[in-house]
């Protein structure tokens, strides 16, 4: 029997509906799924139906799992099912459960509306994981033409599963700017990208962005792909986001990143962000083409100045962002990094930002550098 070179794990999207913050059960189920080799794209809590449908299609998951506690579940599951079906994603499964506000009669109705399974309080973690592993072991057969995002998402899945790029098409590379963003865990890369997306959506009336976001695969080879949960502005029709697990590759990216990126650059995107997992000092994740801009995001608390000499990316980054400029050591850190860049003498740009601050001027500056948009002063 011929086996595909790379095992392709079950990918699942989980979420908690709008106006509901009860994430204890879903967090526990996520952890248990990951332990059993499932890749979970977690969209977070308080999520509208449209965000769930969009994410499920872009991530090309086998199924959507929804945990609901405070009512309105009959309508919500029906809307999600309907949204998927209308977008040519009838093959993506839907299951869920909740804190008991779902009655037996509700569950029957929800199943009639196209929900595969409802778990009641007391359902064991084993039974949920077993259901997911069995029911969604194989991808569903699409029964309707996909949307453009759906087609793109499936192409990326094929690249991830088979390790090969799509057949060479005549299409040239589109004019997308590809921006690699890397840095240690907790430096604020995800927040920074989301803030850049927000500015893009405000500044330009049309045009789309793609994001390839990476999270590490864990022991058991599952992964929690949780960036969508915190990227509130990136859940938008003009953003195509794909969460990738590293699947055994070291250095911050997935084995399929470059090929996926090649494919994405042939699509109509203006900007493509590639976010690595949190990296160490020696990491140089963006070696291959086609990165137009390499951005290193740093915490102010990188340790003693000597540590700066060891951060390899400082030599190759086009832009270095010292994030969390509202923190105590930030000014000193920016000064030290600035001196280091000056020694390099390569015209690298230094930006001090506080991505978590509303309308942060540092992020505005980074946005101008990234998009080439005119500065306010020039206007």
């Amino acid at each position, binding site marked *: 029997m011929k086996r595909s070179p790379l095992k392709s794990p079950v990918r699942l999207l989980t979420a908690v509906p*709008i*106006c*509901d*913050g*009860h*994430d*204890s059960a879903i*967090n*526990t189920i996520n*952890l*248990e799924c990951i332990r059993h080799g499932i890749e979970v794209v*977690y969209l*977070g*809590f*308080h999520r*509208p*139906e*449209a965000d769930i449908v969009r994410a499920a299609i872009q991530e090309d998951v086998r199924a959507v799992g929804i945990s609901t*506690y*405070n*009512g*309105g*579940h*009959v*309508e*919500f599951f029906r*809307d999600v099912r309907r949204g998927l079906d209308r977008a040519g994603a009838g093959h993506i499964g839907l299951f869920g459960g909740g*804190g*008991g*506000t779902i*009655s*037996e009669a509700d569950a029957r109705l929800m199943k009639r509306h196209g929900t595969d399974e409802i778990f*009641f*309080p*007391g359902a*064991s*973690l*084993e039974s949920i994981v077993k259901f997911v592993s069995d029911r969604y072991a194989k991808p569903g057969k699409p029964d309707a033409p996909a949307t453009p995002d759906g087609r793109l998402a499936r192409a990326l899945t094929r690249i991830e599963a088979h390790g090969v790029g799509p057949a060479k098409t005549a299409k040239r590379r589109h004019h997308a700017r590809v921006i690699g963003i890397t840095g240690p865990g*907790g430096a604020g890369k995800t*927040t920074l990208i*989301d803030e850049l997306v927000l500015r893009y959506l405000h500044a330009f009336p049309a045009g789309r962005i793609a994001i390839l976001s990476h999270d590490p695969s864990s022991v058991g080879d599952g992964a929690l792909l*949780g960036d969508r*949960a*915190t990227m*509130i502005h990136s859940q938008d029709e003009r953003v195509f986001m794909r969460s990738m697990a590293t699947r055994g590759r070291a250095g911050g990216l997935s084995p399929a990143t470059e090929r996926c990126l090649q494919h994405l650059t042939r699509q109509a995107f203006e900007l493509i962000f590639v976010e690595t997992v949190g990296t160490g000092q020696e990491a140089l994740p963006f070696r291959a083409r086609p990165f137009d801009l390499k951005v290193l995001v740093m915490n102010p608390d990188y340790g003693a100045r000597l540590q700066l000499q060891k951060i390899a990316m400082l030599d190759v980054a086009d832009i270095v962002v010292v994030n969390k400029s509202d923190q105590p050591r930030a000014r000193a850190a920016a000064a030290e990094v600035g001196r280091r860049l000056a020694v390099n003498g390569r015209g690298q740009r230094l930006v001090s930002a506080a991505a*978590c601050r*509303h*309308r942060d001027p540092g992020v505005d500056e980074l946005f101008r550098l990234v998009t080439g948009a005119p500065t306010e002063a020039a206007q």
Partner: protein
Amino acid sequence: MSRLAQVCDAVAAHNRLVANQAVRARTDAKLRAEVLARWEQAHAAIPQVELPTGLKVPRIALPQLDEAGEIARYLYGEGLPGEFPYVNSAYPEMYLDPLDPHEPKPEEPTRLFSGLGLAEDTNARFRYLSRHQRTYRLSTAFDGPTLYGLDSDADGVAGKIGEGGVAIDTVEDMLRLYDGFPLGDADCSVSMTISGPAPILMAMYIAAAKRRFGPQVVPQLRGTVQADILKEVQAQNEAIFPVGAALRFLRDMIEWTSREMPRWYPISISGYHIAEAGATPVQQAAYTLSNGFAYVEMLAARGLDADLFGPRLSFFLDSGLDLEYLALARVCRKLWAIGMRDVFGAGPKAQLFKLHTQTSGRSLIAAEFKNNLTRTALELMLAYANATNSCHSNGADEPFTTPSEEWSLLASHAQSILLEESGLFRHMMNALSGSPGMKVMEQVVEAAILEEFRTIEEFGGVLGAMENRYQRTQIQASAHAIERQISSGLRPIVGLTRYANRDEPPPRVQLVRTSASKKRLQLARLKAFKTTHAAAAKQALTRLGEVVDGGGNVFAELLNTVECCTLGQITECLQERVGKFRPMV
């Protein structure tokens, strides 16, 4: 060194002092005489009461000690009921019947959390629950859209209107909600369980009360608004503004109510939702207390006097079935009192950890759900043995639905049986205090809480730990552990993993749901309000925006804004100025 580290040091210093006093009382004749005299005085001051059976007992039970060292350890380390460090209780008498049978009874500690459908539905439930009560204690649950600061006509929320709580969009809904209740009376108190948009709802409450009773009612208003933004970020996920902005809105509200509403509690620092999200009892207590100290630090930094706002802080804990609950609230009272006195220099009134307890919702099980009556009764017993100041007991049908009238009433009656039928809490303080197990648990729990404080301290305090997702990660890990312990049988659950009756048909319970016609009514009301006030709303929101940008007191301005703007309009206006909350996972 942050305030949390100072609290740890102060507690250590206090414990050393107690140990020293115990030793000195044995060796120093003068102190021994003093301690023995105080003990004698304490005994002499305790009246005898007669039980219904005719037996005479002391009104406060004290341990049988005749050795000066141990007496000193008790007096300094634990305190008489209502005395520093308040281990036994915040007040001397708590739920005791008055000595003189002609005296009015104290206010019942029972609170029943209710909220369903539209404002008038919840109003009817309040009337039903309070019809036999001496005083009105209205504890309000809001629906999902309200908790997230959204109007009922927001995209995608139609299914959630009036589910799991009451739908409130405008000041007019607020008027309907408490219609007929004497909000300014001394025997009426209102609590609102809302945090993200708390200042907006609080402003609506004040505006509604003013419309009914005139502006002079404001200083009379009694009650609590939850407004605990830190636990939202750590556990309950109903934050809607970035943390910094939310803390500013909160500070503005506390500053205003502390001055204008001396009988109001503008925050209920809550561990309940932390515990319900899966935290251990120690994590619950540690995060609640550390959040409390963080609020105090923030208000003190604003230049507010701890003796002004300190007495207006209240707390909210879960009572579950773990052994720790035998002593949890006792330890919390002690740590809070020491921290407030020794670190923040607060006087006695600001040292009290005034506690509302709710029995654990998480412990209630759908399978063979009538067992939930027993679970809740046990948790109630633990809550009152820990001298909670008020208490909510859950309906047994909560695994399925917003409690129906039948199970709500049973839950309420469970408290009446415990406090009124049973003699445990009516005649004698400390009837259950001070068992060897309770003392052991106090020490173990206290040490574990202080250990958590030190870890939080290493992150640079509560906000630093929060930014690093420390509390969330810990809570999630505990939740996962509990589920695996249930699966493995380490935590047996009767009716589910033990003694389960496999043939039992699914329970028949009455579901409380909001009908489509009611939802339409709410939408129609909202639309009418928006139309009527369209022009005024625009101006009011502009003014509000100016106050936000100009650094003025946002709460004072909200009192005007709510007269003509809806909850959703106000939320949107504020989010435009300060941004949205970015969730943590």
